[in-house]
């Protein structure tokens, strides 16, 4: 996040308080940029208003791709390119191919899913991004509000954060 952005940060020290604070702050017409936490809090993404992730769809598609690739490779090598009679079986011996096809499906799903996750969250080695407050990865829960994107005045935002139980209100 760029340093020119004008943020007000409400710091909380309890996960239930921050969850309730999100609702309380939103009720006052304040638009929340995001909430940063040391661990996942169930229901927080919904409270903040994030759309449901489409990662499962991506995972399914990568899995399907893996299945097709594995079957295509095995069929090409075993049936078309160099067919061999093994144990008197058909060239197209589908039951024997299930293990490798399964492993291919899992492999593509896992790597496709994790890659999609990293790309969609802008996570990559060498990314210099840091939390808005270094205590976020320890024990503090931080609600970030972008002043420029809000019609409510900075003073009112600070008051709303204080009222909702923030132990500190900082600007960044």
């Amino acid at each position: 996040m760029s340093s020119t952005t004008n943020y007000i940060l409400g710091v909380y020290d309890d996960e239930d308080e921050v969850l309730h604070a999100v609702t309380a702050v939103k009720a006052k017409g304040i638009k929340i940029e995001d909430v940063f936490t040391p661990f996942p809090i169930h229901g927080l993404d919904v409270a903040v208003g994030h759309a449901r992730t489409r990662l499962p769809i991506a995972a399914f598609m990568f899995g399907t791709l893996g299945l097709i690739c594995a079957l295509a490779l095995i069929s090409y090598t075993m049936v078309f390119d160099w067919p061999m009679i093994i144990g008197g079986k058909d060239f197209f011996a589908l039951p024997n191919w299930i293990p490798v096809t399964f492993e291919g499906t899992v492999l593509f799903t896992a790597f496709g899913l994790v890659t999609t996750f990293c790309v969609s969250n802008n996570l990559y080695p060498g990314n210099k991004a840091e939390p808005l407050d270094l205590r976020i990865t320890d024990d503090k829960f931080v609600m970030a509000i972008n002043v420029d994107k809000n019609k409510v005045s900075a003073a009112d935002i600070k008051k709303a954060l204080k009222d909702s139980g923030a132990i500190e209100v900082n600007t960044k």
Partner: protein
Amino acid sequence: MSHVVSPIREKLVTGGKSYSDVTHDICKQVEGEPTKEWKIAFGISCLVFIYGAYCLFYTWWQGIGVWGLNKTVGWAWDITNFVWWVGIGHAGTLISAVLLLFRQKWRTSINRSAEAMTIFAVLCAASFILAHMGRPWLAHWALPLPNAFGSLWVNFNSPLVWDVFAISTYLSVSLLFWYMGLVPDLATIRDRATTAGRKFWYGLFSLGWTGSSKTWARYEYMSLILAGISTPLVLSVHTIVSMDFATSVIPGWHTTIFPPYFVAGAIFSGFAMVQTLLLITRVVFKLEDYITIEHIEMMNIVITVTGSVVGIAYLTEFFIAWYSGVEYESYAFINRATGPYWWAYWMMMTCNVISPQLFWSKAIRTNLMVSFFLSIVVNVGMWFERFVIIVTSLHRDYIPSSWAMFSPTRYDIGDYIFSFGLFFTLFFLFAKFLPVVNMAEVKAVMKGVSSNFPEKKAKSTKKTDEE
């Protein structure tokens, strides 16, 4: 809310820890100077590794003729060790994936080290496969690569090729699962870093993690899906390993019970190995508040259940050998129990079937010394199980003139020592440089399960419940 926990549940984190205490306790061993105990233990494992590496190098250089194999017993310690290590490598993914799907919160403080152990155990297993190939520099021949023989491909009908795919997929997916679990904790270390070096390295691998609620929501989905695909994966791996034997025509190997029997045995030995390491780790790193007696007891219960499954499998196998009416099959089993390798068979029976039954007593399964001892006994038993299956099925060939015994040479033993050196060297490096407990996951389950959680938080939880 996710924090509603039955009051009859034992506390998972004791000692009245706050979130900050968790960070501090776990990061301490990463940030501080290595302790004297760690240096001694790491030094010993390095020496073991170096001696083992010499033996392994000699095996690669001379060929597998340096092993004690003969014309009749063509598989012995190499494949025994391979199957043993792969089996041990099942617990980590089982704990992190299956217990995640079953919402078992006690997994959170042990999954990190169990997964690390899984990865190292699979690497040890891979060393035996490479050595067993005889010409390890041609290992890529097991992969479906276009080659100089007019593209003669690998045989996808062969369980040995299935094994290549199963083990390599398992290793890479486990590594991925483990690494993604590490990212938020690496970010914690990055943000606490006081030295430029630590900030750089932990910053590099924490991928610019900021703890955003959007990222966390996606992260939770990702973990769930990875757990969902890892569960059948972990079951497939030992199923396929067992098919290396089950699809053959050797009496004693050609049995349909092998897949479930091998998977149960793998979980059994894997949990025992996790237990051994946890009991050491919790003392050395002073993690008694995170890895509690409750955790040890849960592990022992899983060991008892899987040990009993393995026991039933032994009996079923024996019964079917008689009931099938196949005399070769019957002979293979009678020979196991009463032939020249009777001591290996009864060692296996005692360690795997009888010893875990002691855990029916609560006093025994909550006793640390006994748990530690029995966890080692179980893995001794599981090593003998594989030895019995492999060697006793082979050593009495169809023609009595081919009957033979197997005795290991110093290189059989040395290659086994290598795997221990590799395993412990990697484990000690992990324990020094990475957080051994998943801090983010432990913090996420603390409310309601941590003893003496500060009064203020307890009140706010109550408020939540009322609302």
